[in-house]
C-alpha cells in the first residue's frame, strides 16, 4: 500500500476506447439526437445537460427505475419490523403494563411502525439509488475531456458507450456527426490509478480511530478498579427523588409519604367478588340460619383495611372452636366500639362443640402442581416456624418456647391430628382459621392473600395425606422406586446394626 503500484496495463489503457462524445448547442437538438440514438438501437448511451431536461428518459429509451418498488418493499419491511419488535418486546419478552393497556396493543404500536416505515423506505431509496447508479464512483473517463466541463454550464453532450453491442468507433463518430453534434471526440479509458486516493483512506482510518476512543475509554474503565466514588452522569436518575416506605413528605397534610388507598378502590388483581372464597363459608346457606353473622362477615371482608384483632378473634370463636377464653377476653378488652364483633355475641347458644357453620367442603382452587408448590412455599414462610416443616407442631418457635418454659405458651396443633382431617375439619374451616387465627395463633388475612391461603389449605391436605400414606397411594409407576428405596434403607440399617453389634462385640472382647 505504501508504494503505489504502476498498473501493468497502463500503456494499453491509453488505447482502449471508452466511448464517443459529441456536443450540442441546445436542448431540442439534444433531444432529437437522443431519440434517433434510441431508434437506432443503442442501449448504452447517456446525455448530459446543465439542467434537468423533461422527457429525456423517454428520448433515450431509459426504462422506468425499480427504485419505487425497493422503497415500497423496504417500507413494508419497516412496518413489519416495528410491529414485530414491539409485539416481541412488550407483549412477550418483557411484559410490562403501561397505562393499563393490553401487552400487545396495536394503537400504541402505530407511531413507531409509522416512523420505521419512513426510515426504512428513505434509507432504501437513498442507498438503493446509490447502488443502482453504481455509486460511489470517484472518477469517470469522460472527465478527461477538457470541453466536458461545460456540461455543468452551457453545453449539452451526448455520449455513446463503447460497451454497446452496436458500437464501432468510426460508425459512432459519423452517426453523431450525422445527428448534428459538434466537436466529436473519442474518450479513452481513464488511466489514472484505480486505487482509492491515499488521503481518503488515511482520513477514514483516522476517523474510525477517533470514534473508537470513547468506547476504549469505557472498556478501560470497566476493567480498572478505583477507590474514588463513581461518576454520576445523571444524578437525578441514580438518586431517585421518589420516597421509600415509612418516610415523611411535606407534600401531604398528614405528612405521610405512603398514601392510603383511595376509598372505594381495589388493588389491581385483588377484585375478588366471590365472598365464599374470601370467608371459606357458604354464605347463602349461612344466611338462612344466621343472617346477622353473614352481614358481619361481609362487612369484615369488604373493609379489610380496618380489620383488627377483634373480628379475627370473633370469627375464630364463632367458628365453634374449643378455645381457651383467652383470645376472646383479649378481644373484648381491645374492642373499643365494635359491638358487632363481640365474640360473646357471636358464639352460638348451642355451645361450642356443635359447629353448624356451612363451611366450604372443597378447596375452590384447582389442585394443580403450581398451587401445591405455592402452598408449600407459603407454608414454609408463614406456618413452619410454629407447626414445623412437616406440620407435626414442632417448629422452632415451639421448641424455643418449650425450652424456656414459656408460661403463656399454647403449643401449636399437630396438623396430623385426626380432628384436623378433612372429614372433621372442612377446608373452609381451615381457611377461616388461617385467616382469623385461633388460640395463640394470629390471623394471617393481612399478610397472605386469599388465594395463597387456599393454596396453604391444599398443601396442608397434601401433608396430611403424605404422613398417612400407604404404598397403594403411590402411582404404580413409581412404586418400584419407593420399594427399592425402602429395601436400600432397610439394608443400610441392618448393615449399620450389624456393624454396631460387631463393634460392640469387639470392644467387649
Amino acid at each position: 500500500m505504501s508504494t503505489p503500484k504502476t498498473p501493468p496495463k497502463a500503456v494499453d489503457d491509453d488505447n482502449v476506447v471508452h466511448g464517443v462524445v459529441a456536443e450540442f448547442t441546445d436542448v431540442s437538438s439534444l433531444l432529437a439526437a437522443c431519440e434517433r440514438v434510441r431508434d437506432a438501437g443503442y442501449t448504452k448511451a447517456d446525455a448530459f445537460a446543465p439542467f434537468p431536461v423533461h422527457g429525456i428518459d423517454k428520448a433515450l429509451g431509459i426504462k422506468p427505475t425499480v427504485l419505487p418498488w425497493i422503497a415500497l418493499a423496504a417500507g413494508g419491511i419497516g412496518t413489519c419490523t416495528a410491529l414485530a419488535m414491539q409485539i416481541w418486546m412488550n407483549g412477550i419478552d418483557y411484559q410490562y403494563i403501561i397505562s393499563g393497556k393490553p401487552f400487545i396493543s396495536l394503537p400504541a404500536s402505530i407511531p413507531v411502525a409509522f416512523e420505521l416505515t419512513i426510515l426504512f423506505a428513505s434509507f432504501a431509496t437513498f442507498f438503493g439509488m446509490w447502488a443502482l447508479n453504481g455509486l460511489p464512483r470517484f472518477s469517470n473517463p469522460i472527465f478527461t475531456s477538457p470541453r466536458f466541463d461545460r456540461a455543468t454550464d452551457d453545453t449539452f453532450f451526448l455520449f455513446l458507450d463503447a460497451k454497446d453491442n452496436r458500437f464501432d468507433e468510426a460508425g459512432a463518430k459519423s452517426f453523431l456527426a450525422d445527428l448534428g453534434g459538434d466537436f466529436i471526440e473519442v474518450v479513452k479509458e481513464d488511466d489514472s490509478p484505480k486505487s482509492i486516493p491515499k488521503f481518503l483512506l488515511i482520513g477514514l482510518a483516522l476517523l474510525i480511530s477517533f470514534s473508537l476512543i470513547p468506547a476504549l475509554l469505557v472498556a478501560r474503565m470497566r476493567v480498572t478498579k478505583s477507590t474514588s466514588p463513581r461518576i454520576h452522569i445523571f444524578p437525578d436518575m441514580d438518586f431517585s427523588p421518589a420516597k421509600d416506605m415509612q418516610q415523611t413528605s411535606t407534600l401531604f397534610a398528614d405528612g405521610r409519604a405512603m398514601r392510603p388507598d383511595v376509598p372505594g378502590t381495589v388493588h389491581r388483581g385483588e377484585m375478588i367478588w366471590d365472598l365464599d372464597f374470601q370467608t371459606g363459608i357458604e354464605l347463602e346457606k349461612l344466611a338462612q340460619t344466621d343472617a346477622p353473622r353473614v352481614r358481619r362477615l361481609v362487612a369484615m371482608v369488604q373493609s379489610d383495611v380496618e380489620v383488627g384483632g377483634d373480628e379475627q378473634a370473633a370469627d375464630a370463636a364463632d367458628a365453634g372452636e374449643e378455645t381457651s377464653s383467652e383470645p376472646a377476653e383479649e378481644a373484648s378488652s381491645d374492642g373499643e366500639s365494635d359491638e358487632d364483633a363481640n365474640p360473646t355475641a357471636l358464639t352460638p347458644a348451642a355451645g361450642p362443640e356443635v359447629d353448624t357453620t356451612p363451611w366450604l367442603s372443597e378447596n375452590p382452587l384447582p389442585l394443580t402442581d403450581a398451587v401445591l408448590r405455592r402452598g408449600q412455599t407459603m407454608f414454609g414462610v408463614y406456618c413452619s416456624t410454629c407447626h414445623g416443616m412437616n406440620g407435626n407442631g414442632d417448629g422452632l418457635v415451639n421448641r424455643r418456647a418449650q425450652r424456656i418454659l414459656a408460661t403463656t405458651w399454647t403449643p401449636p396443633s399437630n396438623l396430623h391430628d385426626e380432628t384436623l382431617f378433612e372429614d372433621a375439619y372442612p377446608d373452609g374451616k381451615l381457611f377461616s382459621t388461617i385467616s382469623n387465627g385461633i388460640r395463640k395463633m394470629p390471623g394471617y388475612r393481612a399478610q397472605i392473600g386469599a388465594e395463597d391461603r387456599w393454596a396453604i389449605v391444599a398443601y396442608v391436605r397434601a401433608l396430611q395425606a403424605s404422613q398417612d400414606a400407604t404404598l397403594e397411594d403411590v402411582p404404580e409407576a413409581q412404586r418400584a422406586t419407593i420399594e427399592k428405596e425402602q429395601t436400600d434403607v432397610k439394608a443400610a440399617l441392618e448393615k449399620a446394626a450389624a456393624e454396631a453389634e460387631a463393634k460392640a462385640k469387639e470392644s467387649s472382647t
Partner: protein
Amino acid sequence: MSHHHAVAPKPADDPAFTMPAMLSGLSLPLCVVGLIALVGGTFLGSSAVGGRFGMSAYLTAYMYAMTIAIGAMFFVLIQHLVRAGWSVVVRRVAELIMIMVVPLAVLFIPIGWAVWTGSLYVWTDAAGYQAEHHIPADAWAEKIRWLNPQWFTLRACVYLGVYCLIGCWYYSKSQRQDQTGEVTLTESMQARGGPAIILFALCTSLLAADWVMSLAPMWFSTMFGVYIFAGSILSAHCAIALLSFVLQKQGAMRDEVTIEHYHDLGKLIHGFVCFWAYIAFSQYMLIWYANIPEETVWFFTRYPGFSEDFGPISIALMVLHFGVPFLGIMSRHVRRTPWAVAAWATYILVLHFVDLYWAIMPEATVGSGGAMGVLASVLTVLGMVCLMLGLIVIVGARTRLIPVRDPRLAESLAFENI
C-alpha cells in the same frame, strides 16, 4: 407525447373555455332535482326516524358540500400564496367550487333555524340536557357561555361572512383578469393570500367545533378542527380532479389540462389521504391512551363492540378511507392515467361522505335509523351534490373554464413532472 416547447395559450374566447352545452342543459334539472331530494330527504328523516335525525342528515349533506367548497378555497389561497405555476389551468375549476360558499351561506338558514327551535343540537335544551346527563352546574355554565343560540348564530354569520368575502374577492379578481390580464391583480391576490389563509384557518377550526363537535356538547378534541380540515382539503382536490375530468370528457379544456396536472393532483390526493389518516389516528390515539371518560365517550358511541351501526363504519374508515386509496393511488402509472385519477377521486368523495356521516349521525340517534334513515341520509346528500353541481354549471357557463389571461398560464400549460 410530451411537448418540449412552451405551448402558446389559445385565444381567450376559444370555445374550449366555455361550459359544454350538454352540461349547461343539465344545470336547471340538476338544481330542481337536487333541491327536491335535499328537502325530501330531510323531511323523510324527520318523519320516518325522528326530528333530530332529519336535521342531522341535512347537516351531514351541508357539511359535505361546505367542506369541499372551503377545501377548494384553501386550494386557491395556497396556490396564490406559494405562487404556484402548475395549477393555473385547474384554478378556475377550484374557484367555481369555492364560490359555492355563497349559496351555502343561504343554505345555512335551516341549521340556524334548527338552533333556535331546538331540533338539531342537544345543547339548545340547556337545562334539560344538564339534568339528563348530571353535568356539574359550573362546568355546564361555562359550556353555555359558548354554546347558546345568540352567540352561535353570530359566530356562524362571521364564518360565513369571512368565507363569502374571501371567495367573492378572489373570484371577482380572477374574473377581472380574464378581461384585462393585469399582472397587478395576481400580485394583490398573492399579497392577500397570507392574511386570508389565517382567517380561513381560524374560521374552519372554529366552524368544525361549532357545527359538528358541539353535537356532543360535553365532548372535546383539540384535533377536531384539523380533522374536518383534513377531510375538506382531501375531498376538494378530488372534486377538482373529477370536475376537470368531466369537463374534458364533454370537450372543454382538452389541451390545457394534461396528464401532468392529473399526476400532480394525484400526488396531492395521495398526500392528503395520508394526512387525513395521520390526523384521524392522532386524535384517536391520544384519547385512547389517556382513557378519560369524557373524551372516550365519543369514540365509544362509534365502537364496534357498542354500536352495531357505526362500529363497522369505524373499522371500514380505517381500511377504505386510508388503506385502500393509500395503495391505490401510490403508483405513478395510476396518477398519470386521468380516468384512474378521476375514479379514485370519485371513490374518495364517497368515502368523505361516509366520514362525515360517521362524525355526525351517531349523535342524532343511537342507530342509523334503519333503512329509512340510510335512505334519508343518502337522498339528502345526493340532493345537495346535485344542487351544487347545477349551481356550478350555471356559474361556470357565465365565465371561462380556465383563467385565460393569468400571467402564469403558459407555465402551467407547459408544465411537466419529469
